[in-house]
């Protein structure tokens, strides 16, 4: 598991953690049943406070990404294949949304955008 925190980022630390763990789960780098470090261990490793890591984990748990097993710790939750695919789709959707917004701002029209997508998708084989 990789977590890199940036102090300069405008995002609060707990969000940075949640996001990175989420991404790794979605990408399949963290698999179902994989154990996560305890909130205290994580706080120690990252040199942040326990409440921050707790908040990150609480968020992940409420979104169904992780489970807390009393007395044993936190584990990556069983991901419903459908839901997982949906989450993956959502992630890409969000990124595309950003691209669309930027394109509109810069005055790039739909055709140009489509061409760009074509090039990018097909160039990396």
């Amino acid at each position: 598991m990789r977590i890199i925190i940036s102090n300069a980022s405008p995002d609060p630390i707990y969000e940075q953690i949640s996001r990175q763990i989420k991404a790794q789960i979605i990408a399949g780098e963290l698999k179902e049943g994989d154990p996560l470090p305890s909130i205290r261990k994580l706080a120690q490793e990252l040199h942040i406070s326990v409440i921050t890591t707790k908040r990150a984990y609480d968020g992940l748990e409420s979104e169904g990404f992780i489970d807390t097993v009393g007395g044993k710790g936190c584990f990556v939750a069983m991901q419903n294949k459908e839901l997982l695919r949906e989450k993956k789709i959502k992630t890409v959707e969000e990124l595309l949304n950003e691209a669309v917004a930027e394109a509109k701002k810069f005055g790039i029209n739909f055709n140009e955008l489509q061409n760009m997508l074509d090039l990018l998708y097909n160039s990396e084989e």
Partner: protein
Amino acid sequence: MENVLELTNVRKNYGDFYLQDVSFSLQEGYIMGLIGPNGAGKTTIIKLIMNLIIKNGGSIKIFDKDHCKDEVEIKSRIGFVYDNPHYYEHLNLNQIKKIIAPFYKNWDEDMFQHLVKKFDLPHKKIIKKFSRGMVMKGAIAIALSHHADFIIMDEPTSGLDPIFRRELLDLLYDVLQNEKKSILFSTHITSDIERIADFITFILDGKIIFSSAKDEILENYALIKGENALLNEETENYCIGVRRNSFGFEALTNNVLEAKAVFGKQIVTDRATLEDIMYFYNARRYND
């Protein structure tokens, strides 16, 4: 979740200094930073908790027990470090340990030796020849060597180099791996505690300004900077403390959205550190 420490309306008169209606609590398993400028009342609060000085009113509970009635039982579970540890200066660390250790049922000699070695402290040198840093390290070693459930430290890092301050934080993280252990750490060097603290209590002039989760504080407070022209009697009310220079002003707000609404888009907002918060509250004190 039990509160390891609970202060309610604690009062203390000290001649020309008053501690007024101090109330805050710390949940078990967390670390709280008690911050404030010198003379604000941090040491007084810690001494009151340890019953070294007698309170004039209010109640203090530790491990859910009254700190006076069950004093002995409570203190056997507390590891304390004062900003100026007083030991017999003509004795060495070993001798001092031999004096103090028997008072604790849970004294862990292995732990003590491990810490002494880790801190690189000499066994046979007398305390008089110790540097201030070494004395503090000795005090910390003693405090952490009897499986205390609650560690109380009063300015343990002032006068110490940044490297040791980091080492101390590492030690505290180790302590906190056990969710039954709690730490209260008073300091005016806020950078020490900025990352590790779960809760922050800020005291100024004998009054508690706030006591809440550190994350919340750092999210709600921000620095706003802008042209001096933007400041007037009305807008200043939305700031906590203002600092003007010839190029613009800097102020603290505890409600970023409100500040943005009041000042408009011409201001720059920036993260406020605990030090900023302390500074501006203190500045407000002088401007009032």
